[in-house]
């Protein structure tokens, strides 16, 4: 469900941009998705294909650039990079980490024909 809403958001942005740039066909959509954004990439792929039908981006390729997850460790007070939301601090092993970056969900660019 979540991935469907995200793709509906993507479609809205693409349609606005296509109008603004007089574009009739989008061939590739590149996203930047943070590791903590909670987006399941397989589900996103599936939803993307379905949601783009009937739009200028029907059949477009989807490329995803994954952005790292960064958190502040409340034990050693250092900013650290972690792969998974519940990973311990790689520096001190602490378990209380507040995410700072990694929840991004952005459309980076469109390749258009």
């Amino acid at each position, binding site marked *: 469900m979540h991935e469907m809403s995200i793709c509906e*958001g993507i479609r809205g942005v693409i349609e606005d941009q296509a109008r603004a740039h007089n574009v009739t066909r989008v061939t590739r959509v590149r996203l930047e998705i943070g590791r903590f954004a909670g987006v399941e990439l397989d589900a996103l792929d599936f939803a993307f294909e379905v949601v783009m039908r009937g739009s200028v981006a029907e059949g477009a390729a989807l490329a995803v650039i994954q952005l790292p997850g960064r958190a502040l460790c409340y034990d050693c007070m250092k900013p650290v990079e972690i792969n998974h939301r519940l990973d311990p601090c790689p520096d001190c092993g602490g378990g209380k980490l507040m995410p700072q970056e990694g929840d991004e969900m952005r459309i980076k660019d469109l390749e*258009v024909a």
Partner: protein
Amino acid sequence: MSQERLIEIETDILSKNDRYAEANRAVLRDRGILALNLVSSPGSGKTTLLCRTIEALGDLPLAVIEGDQQTENDADRIRATGARAVQVNTGKGCHLDGHMVGHAMAHLALEPGALLFIENVGNLVCPAAFDLGEDGKVAILSVTEGEDKPLKYPDMFTAARLAILNKTDLAPHCDVDLDLYETNLRRVNPGIEILRVSARTGAGMDAWIAWLRSELAAKRFAGAAQ
């Protein structure tokens, strides 16, 4: 001849929602209205907690936006307390969004200095990503749900300012460790505030009501200062 070219857009996927949310936030700021987005899994006791809360707040001006996929049941329960409520049915949707809440706010015609509760669709996943323009999210977690709930659905608890550990009257009957709930909440959000409440017996309600009054006073002050 191929004319492929690249258009840089660097736009947030949820930017449309964020624009609606920002418009809601501006209205709330100008009128000094405190809006809280209540999030939880289905069955955490959100509506009962809200009904008890409304009774405890007495004649303070307030209104409720109820989000559910179907039925008017929750809005009916809120209206039975005498409070104004508007029900938003999301149909297949799994969360409220900024646009829906903007419409509901217009419908409620909120007076300055009021308290607005937005009871989101019972769902610990999607509502975390959709800004409604609220001042903060309050996550309600009932003690029957399992101590590891914050670890299973960290995003929601990371996004919340306050967690209410509800149904504490049931704790002795279901072998739960309330301290472990708090440890796990702080693991995913070291800054979160936590209150233990039983909406049914009224235990802990005073602290919750005091929290609400203090947040509302701060919002009204900020509105007036502006």
